[in-house]
């Protein structure tokens, strides 16, 4: 099978998240909402977050796009459940470094996130994987600006 070379990219976990995305539903109420768009391939993501006591109580995403962008968003929503803003910021930085090949994730227990590490070998697709994470970063920034003023 000639597509074997792509097995690193299209791992079962990724395809599973793409076909059955988690938290793929708009929230009835949320504290912050942010949209992200990747004009190269038309990937679209909208993230909604609801906080309780400084932690993520609910997160939902809506989006259309390639398997990598949508699977990455689905994995993200599972990853950030119950986390504080600073924990999420750390995770975003970790994920970015992982995509840029700056950290080795093989010996760390990072769950489904690890499945996305295969994307690193496909530079064109890194943007797809990063979209939801940069969108979350913007959402957190926006939320902090909003609550600072309040």
């Amino acid at each position, binding site marked *: *099978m000639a*597509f074997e070379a792509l097995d690193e990219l*299209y791992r*079962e976990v990724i*395809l599973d998240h793409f076909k059955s995305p988690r938290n793929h539903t708009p929230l009835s109420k949320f504290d912050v909402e942010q949209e992200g768009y990747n004009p190269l*391939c*038309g*990937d679209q993501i909208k993230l909604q977050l609801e906080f309780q006591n400084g932690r993520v109580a609910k997160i939902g995403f809506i989006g259309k796009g*390639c398997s*990598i962008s949508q699977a990455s968003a689905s994995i993200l929503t599972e990853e950030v459940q119950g986390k504080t803003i600073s924990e999420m910021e750390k995770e975003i930085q970790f994920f970015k470094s992982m995509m840029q090949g700056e950290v080795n994730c093989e010996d760390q227990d990072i769950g489904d996130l690890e499945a996305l590490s295969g994307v690193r070998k496909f530079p064109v697709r890194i943007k797809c994987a990063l979209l939801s994470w940069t969108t979350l970063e913007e959402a957190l920034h926006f939320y902090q600006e909003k609550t600072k003023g309040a």
Partner: protein
Amino acid sequence: MDVKKVRKDFPILDQKTHGKPLVYLDSAATSQKPTSVIEALSLYYETMNANIHRGIYALSEEATQAFESTRKKVAQFIGAKEERSIVFTNNTTEAINLVAASWGRKNVKAGDEILLTQMEHHSNIVPWQLLAQEQGARLKYIPITSEGELDLSSLDSLLSDRTKILAVTHMSNVLGTINPIKKLIAKAHAKGILVLVDGAQAIPHFKIDVTDLDCDFYAFSAHKMLGPTGVGVLYGKPHILESIPPFLGGGEMILEVHEEYSTWKPLPYKFEAGTPNIGSVIAFAKAIEYLEKIGMDEIRAHEKAITRHALLVLQELEGITIFGPKDVEVKGGVVSFALADIHPHDLGQLLDQEGIAIRAGHHCAQPLMRVLNVAATARASFYLYTTIEEVDFLAETLKKARRYFYRGF
């Protein structure tokens, strides 16, 4: 036309990608170049490089003559009566921007209407939006049918008393639809409305005669018709081009410059400010010579056969949706499709692994994507060097890609 022989003239087609022979199905984005064009480009830099229209020495004179002989060749190729109606730009986009800015600012006023179609490329939308916003004009769009052809049922009312120009693509870069341009031009002219044709996808693939069409402007690019990148052409009726101000100001386009004002050179130089892409314009002549040698009718016949075959084999695939007309009489060599719920970007990646280059995305036609209700499509596009075997390989690989993507489900 002997495709095998033609392919020998395109050195890049011998290349391998991921260890597989390159199957280049993205000619609607840019065409590959024959050896004669590549050599002409090097030859220019090796033997002729000098700035044009100003040197008093032999080298500059030679470059100027070669540059101007391309203009003559372009005029003949598209049936333009006068060489001064051929303006060189950087690309189709710049040619359309020239018209929107120079003609538009002078002729389009508040409340006027600009008529486009739902199948336009961004390059034939955004320049008009900029103009409309500046002048307070309105944009209107001719809708498309479910078959992906222009819906002309409301054309008479869309061409209103306020309409100043109709800007329409000759052939859709997404659907492959070849529009009934001559009929549209006649209808628009009957109401005194000018017509700009975006011919970027048409002129590489079939015979065009701007005099017969009677279009007011016709814009296209060299790089989609075997020529180098960085060269566009605007054909304009001379009396219209004469009546409008320059687009860009600077060197080359002036007659006299005073502290407060300047005067312009005659056509077409008035619209060619600055040093142009001399080497590429000169090499562009070789592209036209190549097309003429093969013959535009031969090329069209070949692409019809390829497209007919592609529609036939692709339609057989489970889960496929093909966008645009299925009748090759009104369709060029462009087939856009979706395969089950595999995103085009994923499809593109899978096909690339097998050496197949297709385009995946919105194809610079986001308004059309919204009409089709998709975020993106996959697109295979053909040219004179495309073979039936390549199309079969595409279909076979798509089948494998679907199996791979749905493994374990």
